[in-house]
């Protein structure tokens, strides 16, 4: 019985296989790397969601391929994000419409095909800022109309001389007086005005 010479079977593909020349080994490694690259679906949301969450690699790393637009940031989306913050902060001052409109504009201009994550968040923040302003204006008009101040003011305006250069200032003062007369007690809050 002839005994075949013992040759251990190499199962680790990253090492040279039995009977494989060094040149073939390098070529095989190279091919395997290429196949792996081709099989990797860089475009899938799942891949990039996992990739970004894991904290591996860095932006623009050639070993990891191009970063999809969803996860890229450009100057415009950064500006939109900043406007979003300013829009939310300035809701109480009444400037949210200004920053909100800017932010929405920048967010819309930041996309190529679809919105990036930062731009989408910015769009929401700016949208809330603009909506808050619109809601404030609607509520102000509703309050003026429902309280009867609107009718009173309209009657006063009709009776005024519109050629008077101080007409606008007088109307403004009268409106303020009307509001204070109607809501002065509530606005003072302390209840000391009895």
């Amino acid at each position, binding site marked *: 019985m002839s005994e075949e010479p013992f040759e251990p079977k190499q199962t680790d593909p990253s090492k040279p296989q039995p009977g494989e020349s060094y040149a073939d080994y390098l070529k095989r490694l190279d091919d395997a790397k290429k196949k792996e690259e081709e099989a990797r679906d860089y475009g899938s949301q799942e891949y990039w969601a996992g990739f970004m969450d894991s904290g591996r690699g860095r932006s623009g790393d050639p070993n990891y391929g191009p970063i999809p637009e969803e996860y890229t940031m*450009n100057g415009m989306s950064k500006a939109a994000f900043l406007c979003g913050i300013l829009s939310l902060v300035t809701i109480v001052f009444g400037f949210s419409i200004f920053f909100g*409109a*800017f932010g929405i*504009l*920048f967010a819309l*201009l930041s996309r190529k095909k679809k919105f990036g994550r930062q731009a989408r968040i910015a769009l929401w923040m700016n949208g809330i800022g603009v909506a808050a302003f619109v809601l404030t204006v609607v509520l102000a008009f509703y309050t003026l109309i429902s309280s009867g101040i609107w009718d009173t003011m309209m009657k006063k305006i009709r009776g005024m001389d519109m050629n008077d250069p101080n007409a606008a200032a007088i109307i403004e003062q009268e409106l303020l007086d009307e509001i204070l007369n109607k809501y002065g007690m509530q606005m003072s809050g302390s209840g000391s005005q009895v």
Partner: protein
Amino acid sequence: MKISTSTIKQTARGTLIGHWNEHIAFSAALIGLELIAVWIVNLFAVTGTATAFIFRIVVAAILQVLLGLFAAGAKRHFLRSLRGEASPLADLLVPLMKQPDRYLIVGLVQIAAGFLCFAPLLLVSLFRFPNAYVTLAVLIVLSIFGIAAYAAVRATIAPAWFLLLDDESLSAGAALKKSAALMRGRVWDLIRLALSFIGYVLLAFLTFGIGFVWVLPYYYTSLAGFYEELCKQI
């Protein structure tokens, strides 16, 4: 073949991203010139006489035609940017320096067309109908007619500016004829493209007009993209 608005706008955004600084310089210069023109027109305040009114309209028309030269310069910049060519700020003055008469003629045709489209409205507004509702209805109908006709004329003329920029040997008349031929069956596509900017214009107004500095490059690049698409389809 229909020209896709979304594809053109997507290409325009792709061209602008990363190069906003240079584009903003062009639109800011153009807006600055427009504001100067408005200021000049406002110097000729209407005093109530028909002569003053007509004089003001004539001054406004002349300034618009002159501004058309700079607008053509801006169009040249955005067209070149779309083609990946470098375009310095001096491009704004190219139509003014090189055969400005061609651009002035196209500008004059555009203004004259606008005047003709709104002439019925101007004439009717001088008369008083017995019933206020009839007056209102007639004015609304004529306004809609004027806007629609002017939009169609503007759309037909729009590629003429780019044709003049592309071919220095082309005369204004030839450019207008070629433009009309190019736009046959595609006028609505360009109007649709322009209408798609209404939202951007509203947003720009909410920023007290400052937003136009960003909206103008987007609009002009889209127009250039439309022209490129037209040329491809010939």
